[in-house]
């Protein structure tokens, strides 16, 4: 449990995000957002409530909502399209999630654990998803017939008539140079830091991977130079 001062700090972090004033312009308490919200139908969650808590600066209940509720949001932005005040409750939730991560809140760690595979793929390749992640044994609830032609994944992917798609461990072929550029983006924007706060083990794996890929790229560049000199 955080102290009141920590809760205030968390609230200040939310409020100081430059999107905050875009996303919150007042609130009629009309509930249109909640009426159209898919998550409100399934969870103890209401975008109207989130907006009201922020609007009334209720720091304790904001902190409470960050324990679980903010993770119920499906980020569909239906609320944002409907709100007569031009608020974006979904956008506010996105800010609150970022702040929950920044503060290393346990709720964020719990919620994000199953996301590790996507994160690893994304950070290391620049692709969020790959064919080998969507195999039947990963998704038993999708049923026994999730594909209508069975066979070796590699061959099935080769039978896609686009060169870039003939991959199994990335959704499309991402050039090494492109991935290496992504590592710079992750570093310079603090995303790797976020990861370190959330999951140190995953962070270590990713760090090693990045180092390896950078070396591979440096070797490749060197090879090109040598070839040029030889020519």
């Amino acid at each position, binding site marked *: 449990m955080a102290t009141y001062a920590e809760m205030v700090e968390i609230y200040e972090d939310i409020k100081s995000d430059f999107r905050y004033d875009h996303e919150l312009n007042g609130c009629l308490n009309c509930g249109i957002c909640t009426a159209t919200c898919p998550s409100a139908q399934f969870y103890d969650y209401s975008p*109207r409530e989130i907006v009201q808590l922020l609007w009334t600066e209720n720091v304790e209940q904001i902190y409470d909502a960050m324990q679980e509720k903010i993770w119920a949001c499906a980020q569909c*932005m239906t609320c944002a399209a409907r709100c007569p005040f031009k608020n974006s409750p979904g956008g506010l939730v*996105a800010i609150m999630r970022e702040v929950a991560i920044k503060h290393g809140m346990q709720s964020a760690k719990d919620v994000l654990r199953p996301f590790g595979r996507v994160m690893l793929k994304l950070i290391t390749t620049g692709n969020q998803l790959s064919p080998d992640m969507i195999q039947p044994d990963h998704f038993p*609830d999708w049923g026994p017939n999730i*594909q209508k*032609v069975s066979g070796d994944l590699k061959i099935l992917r080769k039978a896609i008539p*686009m060169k870039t798609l003939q991959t199994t461990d990335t959704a*499309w072929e991402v050039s090494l140079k*492109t991935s290496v550029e992504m590592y710079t983006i992750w570093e310079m*924007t603090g995303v790797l830091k976020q990861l370190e706060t959330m999951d140190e083990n995953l962070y270590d794996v990713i760090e090693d991977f990045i180092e390896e890929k950078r070396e591979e790229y440096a070797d490749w560049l060197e090879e090109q130079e040598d070839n040029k000199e030889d020519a």
Partner: protein
Amino acid sequence: MSNPTNEPRGIAGHGAFFQPTDLSPEQAEKATEWVRKQVDRRTVDLGERMDDVRDHMWELEKDGEIIVHRITDAHKPVIVKTLFGWDKKIPTSQLWHHKSCGQCGNIPGYPTSLLWTMNGLGMVPGKDYLDETDQTSCTAWNYHGSGIGNVESLAAVFLRNFHQAYVSGKRLGHDAGHFFPLVHCATSFGNYKEIRKYLVESAPLRERVKKILAKLGRLVDGKIVIPEEVVHYSDWVHVMRNDIASKLQKIDVSNMRVTVHMACHYSKMVHEDAIYDPEVLGGNRAATGTGIAQALGAQVIDYSTWYDCCGFGFRHIISEREFTRSFTIDRKIKVAREEANADMMLGIDTGCVTTMDKNQWIGKAHEQSYTMPIMADIQFAALACGADPLKIVQLQWHASPCEDVVEKMGISWADAKKRFEAYLEEVKAGKIEYLYDPKLAASAAA
């Protein structure tokens, strides 16, 4: 509902202090009538409170702050109207395919149908479009799912990818700006528009990401490159719909009952930029998807939950699948089946097609055995234009009964499957057929 004990009691989804209204069904109907009317019409017009970010973008260009990747006559643009009646330019040629990881990884028939249709219309790979390896995901699925990432990282990814689009023609002898990005995924589309808005509005953000782009060598004359429009593939399909129908269509689909699911991140995120067309659903709803179905002559059937999300939820599809499948079955599949008695549901996005396609079988566990073939608008269009259901439309990756659609269109699924299995043998022997010369794909180093 009475509450004899008078215990404080909340309603799920409304916060702990909310109580049931105890309205009769008639009263409840009356109370929600207004909301339903609002949802069903374009009454969200915020008038002068809504700013067109493109006006500010032009000012920044004039001040020498940014370069705008322009849509020129060479891109053969078509002008359409968006939600508030604003104009939007849709380039129809010289397109850089900005692929979707969910589509490529999971529904590859999406991009293949699109490229096949472009080829059919006479577009020349390497000149009229380009598919290359130097691009990443937008990373917004991850951001909306996990909260990992931030505006700065999303902006840097956006500018990096779009800079690549801007310079991609060079290696093929074209000028800078030759290829204009065509964004396949609706989440990328919504996210990029949101980020473009922030970039145009915030000088500090521009400064911060400029440093990153400089380090990557991705500035042009020391400036960031921002696209004149962010264009979704369904925008392209929409403006090309009559050409597709008149020039390519081979199969009569007037017997097909079609429902359409509009992607939230197409029509609700930066909603002012979505195409609305008075000829499609009275201009009351976003037009893409429905427009092509109508142009092909299919029967578009309305259903009461058309405005609902599919239940994808970004993190929910991975870690809260009960939500995803319950929502998609209850609010989409069941309704399209029972109310509309549709032959299929068309989507225009990645997550929705995946969610609705894959989460039907599990309904059996809850005695909710509803099935509905799910595919993208462009897959349906390609089928109607005679594309092979497996080799081109790649329906073998779908879990929903898409073979029913194929059969109803008069194509034998069994024959197509046999042909495909024979083709797989050729693939094994290295005889692969391509939609474009595979050498065009190798864009960057390594």
